[in-house]
């Protein structure tokens, strides 16, 4: 049928099938990719929001057939980077743009609201943006951005008044992120936004079984289907077919066995994605189910089937022994024990695990280019080369719609690269949301038995822990997660004696890997819960108990590492007025079924772990600016701000004279992952080292410009490095080198528990954090807010259940409805070894959140939840048991 409408002010006529939705028309036909797709067009995410006849609509749910005569505005119709709309400027200047995937939809929903209500209340904003999901911000800065946009539109403020002077101070100032405006204008190219006409579309067959032998794969029927170019199985992959992140245990496509629900088995390539998906259903795989090992204890049991022929199910064991814990427990005045369990969680970036692979050049000289969401492009390139048997390859990082650890390892890239090689064609793989969940790693579930002891004066004396980690079907970086947990086991506190053990175990669950914090959040939940219970049992104020037992310079962590700076007590002082206010308000609550509670929890998160190295090159440019070369991924945290502001400060340049080359393997240094909150410390440090060399070279020859350097015949490019201490934990005692620095946080949770329904509502979270000197305040605050929102999800709602969690609703994604008030207190203790005194903050923010919330629940109603998430059913059951 023919439909006539106006699109961004231009009259359009289209002939479409009745079922075509506006999102597909915009992206596929008009090539307007500002509207994003995350939720398989179920209307769950709002990333595709546009305005139709003045109202915000989700374009994935809007049939084009109903648009006759309509006026449609997309993000591209609002403004451009050269001439942005005030709302787009407001989002940039408010620091509301992190990964940027949700941003265009947010802005369109905001515009529809502001057109009607130019001065909206928080409640009105929350309602208007209720269909729009964000994983990065915790929604706080988005709400602030809408209010700021209102001020701009009402003429009360102008962007120029708020925009920092790019020639002014570089550190401690929230200069607009280099990528923020193009994200706000919808022109930043995420992988699915890249045009690839003629590319084959891929879809994969995934195992429905947690453990089974593959007896046969019949592809004939699928291959005969319309548009199908072919079906690829493991035998078609010429390389090792193994992702070797640390252990070559994970196949690109399963060979003779599947090990978890979702393991990829075969790949269909077709002219269209719909044809590929249809053909996937026609691939016949004959499985012989095997006993599935659903927990580490099943997998470690005598006679349990071995999941990998080469390795035992018990992957690794790491004890940790410090002092004489047995004696300390025997002599302790007070001992508290508990058995805690954390759930499997999807990191839940909004962008699916999209990948594009194509050949650059022809014949023998063709280079295979893989475009995706990697946060460690050189490592992933090496893995893909080995897995596919094709060496001449390049990885390009597109803009990335959030990651939170999920891209520590290769997900869809192995399939796309192998398919491009097999079919000798460009291929594009846009996995559905369930497929993206199947392909990607998860947060490891931890089972933790914890025991803490204190003397009669309330001084902690001993810590015991038995940690069992569900590694899932493949290792990825499970050993790193375990070691990180052990290196931060004692949290913020001084435990003179420690007796602990961690075990990492293969199971037939989805494989675990990095997830914001990656290990420490799980053990810290148990530790901070136990510490809180001990304080309450001893009738010592929980905040005072933490302050009293803080580690101090000169004392050692559980690894035996003696620290020389530890500004945690100062955080206790900083949060004290908020804590006192919260306690007072909670106690003033009247009788009723809703009970208010207050909880605190701390966390001290290691930065600059042993054996790390970063390299960053700088080059003086002919215009006397500099270009920074380094694979420093920025999936939303603000590493582009960090690099450009550190460089501009060190070179005394305006920000627009600093260029970043960070996104492809042909032009960058191999630099390690955007993980472990490491880039500010590691790559920031390497950058400053490179600039130091450049400046010394300039000074040595009396040069002040590029021309002077050329004239003197002095090189203009310098390589900086940053290395950390080398060494490993002792395999018997777990004593040894640990992190070079720490970021600290203390969080205060105020919750309301409905004793009838068991429902827990977070009223407010307050975070006092010290990440050293702050480079970009809005970025730090944004990380703290987003991390707290994610931490509350971990505490109360989120869980990935294989085969059942298939979309954002079943995952219980945070929304405007679950959003809560947040306060942030920033303390700045410059770190001796930090990059200009700064360290990273991205993960720390989540580490104390769940225990703070669970401690608040106990404060409110007297029950302790030992098994995350604390769903209404669990709280209700605990209340019933207590009664």
């Amino acid at each position, binding site marked *: 049928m023919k439909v006539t409408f106006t699109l961004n002010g231009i009259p359009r006529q289209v002939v479409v099938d009745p079922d075509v939705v506006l999102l597909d028309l915009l992206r596929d036909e008009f090539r307007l990719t500002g509207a994003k797709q995350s939720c398989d067009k179920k209307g769950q995410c709002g990333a595709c929001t546009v305005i139709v006849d003045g109202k915000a609509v989700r374009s994935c749910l809007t049939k084009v057939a109903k648009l006759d005569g309509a006026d449609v505005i997309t993000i591209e119709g609002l403004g451009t980077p050269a001439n942005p709309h005030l709302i787009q400027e407001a989002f940039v200047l408010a620091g509301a743009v992190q990964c940027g995937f949700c941003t265009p939809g947010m802005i369109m929903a905001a515009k529809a609201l502001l057109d009607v209500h130019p001065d909206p209340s928080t409640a009105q904003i929350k309602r208007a943006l209720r269909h729009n999901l964000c994983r990065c911000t915790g929604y706080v800065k988005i709400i602030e951005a809408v209010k700021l946009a209102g001020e701009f539109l009402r003429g009360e403020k102008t962007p120029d008044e708020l925009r920092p002077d790019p020639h002014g101070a570089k550190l401690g100032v929230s200069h607009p992120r280099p990528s923020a405006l193009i994200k706000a204008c919808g022109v930043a190219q995420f992988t699915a936004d890249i045009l690839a006409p003629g590319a084959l579309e891929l879809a994969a067959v995934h195992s429905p079984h947690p453990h089974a032998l593959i007896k046969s794969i019949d592809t004939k029927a699928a291959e005969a289907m319309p548009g199908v170019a072919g079906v690829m199985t493991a035998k078609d992959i010429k390389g090792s077919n193994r992702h070797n992140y*640390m*252990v070559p245990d994970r196949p690109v496509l399963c060979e003779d066995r599947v090990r978890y629900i979702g393991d990829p088995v075969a790949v269909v390539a077709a002219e269209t994605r719909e044809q590929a998906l249809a053909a996937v259903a026609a691939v016949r795989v004959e499985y012989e189910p095997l006993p599935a090992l659903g927990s580490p204890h099943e997998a*470690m*049991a*005598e006679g*349990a*089937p*071995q*999941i*990998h*022929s*080469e*390795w*035992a*199910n*018990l*992957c690794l*064991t790491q004890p940790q022994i410090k002092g004489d814990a047995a004696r300390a427990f025997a002599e302790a005045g007070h001992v508290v024990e508990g058995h805690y369990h954390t759930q499997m969680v999807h990191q839940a970036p909004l962008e699916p695990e999209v990948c594009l692979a194509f050949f650059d050049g022809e014949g023998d*000289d063709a280079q295979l280019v893989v475009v995706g969401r990697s946060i*460690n492009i*050189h*490592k992933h*390139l*090496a893995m893909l080369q080995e897995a596919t048997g094709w*060496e*001449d*390859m390049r990885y390009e990082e597109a803009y990335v719609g959030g990651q939170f650890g999920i891209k520590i390892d290769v997900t869809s890239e192995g399939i796309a690269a192998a398919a491009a090689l097999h079919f000798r064609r460009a291929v594009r793989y846009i996995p559905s949301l369930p497929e993206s969940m199947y392909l990607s790693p998860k947060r490891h579930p931890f089972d933790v*038995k914890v*025991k803490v002891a204190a003397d009669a004066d309330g001084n902690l004396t001993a810590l*015991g*822990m*038995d940690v069992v980690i569900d590694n899932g079907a493949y290792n990825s*970086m499970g050993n*790193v997660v375990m070691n990180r947990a052990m290196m931060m086991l004692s949290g913020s506190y001084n435990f003179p004696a420690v*007796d602990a*053990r961690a075990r990492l*175990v*293969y199971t037939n669950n989805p494989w675990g890997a*990095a997830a914001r914090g990656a290990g420490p959040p799980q053990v810290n939940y148990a530790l901070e819960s136990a510490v809180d219970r001990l304080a309450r049992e001893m009738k010592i104020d929980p905040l005072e108990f933490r302050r009293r037992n803080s580690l101090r310079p000169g004392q050692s962590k559980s690894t035996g590492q003696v620290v020389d700076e530890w500004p945690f007590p100062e955080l206790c002082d900083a949060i004290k007025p908020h804590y006192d206010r919260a306690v007072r308000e909670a106690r003033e609550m009247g009788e009723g079924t809703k009970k208010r509670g207050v909880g605190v929890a701390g966390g001290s998160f290691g930065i600059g772990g*042993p*054996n*790390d*190295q970063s*390299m960053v*090159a700088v080059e003086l440019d002919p215009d006397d600016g500099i270009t920074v*070369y*380094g694979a420093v991924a920025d999936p939303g945290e603000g590493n582009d701000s960090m690099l450009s502001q550190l460089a501009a400060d060190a070179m005394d340049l305006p920000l627009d004279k600093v260029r970043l080359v960070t996104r492809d*393997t042909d032009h960058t*240094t*191999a*630099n*390690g*992952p955007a*993980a472990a909150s*490491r880039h500010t410390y590691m790559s920031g440090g390497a950058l400053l080292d490179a600039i130091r060399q450049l400046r010394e070279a300039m000074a040595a020859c009396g040069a002040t410009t590029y021309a002077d350097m050329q004239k003197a015949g002095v090189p203009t*490019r310098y*390589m900086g490095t940053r*290395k950390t201490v*080398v060494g*490993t934990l002792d395999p018997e005692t777990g004593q040894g080198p640990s992190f070079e620095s720490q970021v600290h946080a203390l969080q205060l949770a105020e919750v309301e528990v409905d004793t009838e329904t068991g429902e827990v509502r977070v009223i407010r979270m307050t975070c006092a954090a010290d990440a050293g000197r702050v480079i970009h305040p809005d970025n730090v605050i944004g990380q703290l807010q987003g991390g707290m929102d994610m931490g509350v999800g971990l505490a109360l709602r989120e869980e990935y259940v294989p085969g059942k969690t298939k979309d954002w609703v079943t995952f219980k994604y945070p929304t405007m409805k679950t959003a809560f008030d947040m306060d942030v207190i920033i303390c700045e203790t410059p770190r001796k070894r930090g990059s200009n005194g700064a360290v990273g903050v991205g993960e720390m923010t989540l580490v104390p959140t769940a225990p703070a919330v669970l401690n608040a629940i106990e404060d409110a109603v007297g029950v302790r939840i030992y098994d995350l998430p604390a769903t209404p059913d669990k709280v209700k059951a605990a209340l019933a048991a207590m009664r």
Partner: protein
Amino acid sequence: MTEVPEPRGGSGRELGLSRHYRDIAGRRVLFDNEGFLWSADDWTEDLAAALGAEMGLDTFTEDHWRVLRFFREYYATNGRAPLNRQLAAGTGMRLLDLEELFPGGIRRGARRLAGLPNPKTCT
């Protein structure tokens, strides 16, 4: 803590993940689990010769050194290993000849002898 029986679930071994120190060429040097140097700065010609001898390469010709020098210089300038075509262009040698020149081929032979570390994972 409560003792838990320690069956391993199958007869396989633990994951072989650890970096390890080796005494070689008169020094103590850290290697990754694939036998690559952990830090490119630990490389010396003596170390390369000692590693080569372990691989059955007792004598380094000028061709060997030319390849190793190219790897070293490329890494120092670019902070990454070259692709094979860059290696061929930089040394003026054919890839097949390069593969045959070093036991273990280009990556596991030449690149390892040149002391170029593997791209780092999260450590």
